[in-house]
C-alpha cells in the first residue's frame, strides 16, 4: 500500500486553491456584443459594450486575454484601502483584517492579466505583498497561542493562509489532543492487555498515520 498512498491526498495544491478562486465574481466592462453564455456553472451575459457585468474570474481572464474587455478592479484592491489594511495589520495584538477569502489569488490573477486596468499597479502590488508577509508572520506567531481544545477559531484567515499552516497546525493539535486525553490511551491499553503482543502500540503506528 505504501507505494499507492499519496500523503497529500487531503491537501490542496496551489493550483487547486487558484482554481477555486477563479470562480469568484469580478466586474468587467466588455467592448463587444455577445449573446448570453449558458454555462454549466451558471448563465452569464448578455454582453453589451460599455455595460459593466459580473462574471467569474476565469471567464474575465479569458476575455481579457483576447482583448474583449477591461477589468474594474474590486474596491478592496486600491491603494487607499490596502494602505489602511496594512497599517491595521501592523498594529501590535491586532486581529486579522477582513479581506476576501481568496485575496492573494485574485490579486495575483489580476496582476498577471489585467495590469493596465489597475491604477497604481506597482504600488498596489507591493502593498498586497507587504500585507501577505505581515499576515503570515502574524499567523506564525498566533500558532504559538493555539490551545489544545477541540476547536480553534480563525478569524478572517484566507484560503492560501489556511492551506499553508494546515499541515503544521493539524499535527500540533493532534498532539495536544492526544496528550490531553490520557483516558483514550488507557482505554486502548486495557483493551489490548489480553494481547501482550499488541500492548506496545509503536509498531502499528506507521500503518495508521500516513
Amino acid at each position, binding site marked *: 500500500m505504501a507505494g499507492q*498512498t*499519496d500523503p497529500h491526498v487531503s491537501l490542496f495544491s496551489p493550483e487547486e486553491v487558484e482554481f477555486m478562486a477563479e470562480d469568484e465574481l469580478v466586474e468587467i466592462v466588455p467592448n463587444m456584443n455577445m449573446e448570453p453564455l449558458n454555462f*454549466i456553472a451558471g448563465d452569464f451575459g448578455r454582453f453589451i459594450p460599455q455595460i459593466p457585468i459580473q462574471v467569474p474570474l*476565469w471567464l474575465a481572464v479569458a476575455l481579457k486575454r483576447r482583448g474583449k474587455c477591461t477589468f474594474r478592479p474590486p474596491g478592496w484592491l486600491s491603494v487607499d484601502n490596502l494602505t489602511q489594511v496594512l497599517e491595521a495589520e501592523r498594529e501590535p495584538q491586532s486581529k486579522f483584517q477582513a479581506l476576501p477569502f481568496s485575496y492573494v489569488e485574485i490579486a495575483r490573477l489580476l496582476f498577471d492579466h489585467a495590469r493596465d486596468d489597475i491604477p497604481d499597479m506597482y504600488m498596489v502590488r507591493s502593498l498586497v505583498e507587504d500585507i501577505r508577509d505581515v499576515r503570515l508572520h502574524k499567523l506564525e506567531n498566533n500558532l504559538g497561542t493555539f490551545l489544545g481544545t*477541540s*476547536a480553534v477559531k480563525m478569524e478572517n484567515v484566507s484560503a492560501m493562509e489556511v492551506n499553508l499552516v494546515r499541515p503544521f497546525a493539524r499535527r500540533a493539535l493532534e498532539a495536544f489532543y492526544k496528550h490531553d486525553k490520557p483516558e483514550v490511551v488507557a482505554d486502548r491499553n486495557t483493551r489490548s492487555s489480553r494481547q501482550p503482543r499488541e500492548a506496545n502500540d509503536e509498531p502499528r503506528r506507521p500503518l495508521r498515520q500516513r
Partner: protein
Amino acid sequence: MASSSDMGSADFESLSSTSDVELLKRAWRNEKAAPEILPYEGDLVERAKGQIELVEENIEAYVENGIDPLVVSLYQMDLDRTQFLLRSYLRVRLLKIEKFMFHSLKSEEAESRLSEQEKVFARRCADDLAKHFEESVLRKLPENYQSVLKQSLISEVDDMVPEPHLDTFVVCRSKSHFTLNLYEEGESTQTEEMDRGDLYFIRYKIVKGAIESGKMDLI
C-alpha cells in the same frame, strides 16, 4: 465577518448559489479534506455527467454551425472546469478506497458509502492485495501469523487493517449560525456558537455530522 459584506463581488458570500457545479465543488472539497471516505454523491455525479454530455454535444453542434470560435472556446473552458471537478472527486475517492480497502469492506456502514462500481473496485483491490501478500510473504510465515487482517491468531480484532484517523483536525467553515457540541459522550459539556462564515480548526469527529448534513463545509 460582518464587515465583509462591503468587500464587493469577490467575496465568497455572494456565491451562495447552489448550482450543481457549486455542489460538486463542495463535494470535491469535502472529500479531499476529510480523513475518511464520505457517502457517495450518486445523484449529483449522474446530473453532472448528464450536463457534461449535453455541453459536449452542444459544442459539436456549435462547431458545425460555424458559431464564433471565441464562444466555442469559452464553452469548452466551462466544460473543462466541470470535468476536472468530477474527475478529481472520483479520483480522490479511489485513492481513499485503496488506502482503506479492508476497512471499507469490513462493515456494512462503511460499504454503504461506496457506489456500486467503487464496491467492485474495493473488492478486487482487496482480493488482489491479499493474494499478493499471501503468495509473497504470508505463506512463508509460521501458521499463527498468516492472516492478512490480524497480527497473529491471538488478536481478537483485525489489528492490521489501516483505518481512517478520525481524531485528526480539519479546517471547516460554517454555513449558518448554529451551536455545535464540542464534546463526545462522557465528556463535560462544552459548546461553541458558530456564525456564518466562521473558520475553525476542529477535530473531525466533532463536525462529522454537521458536514454530512450540509451545515458546514471543509476547506
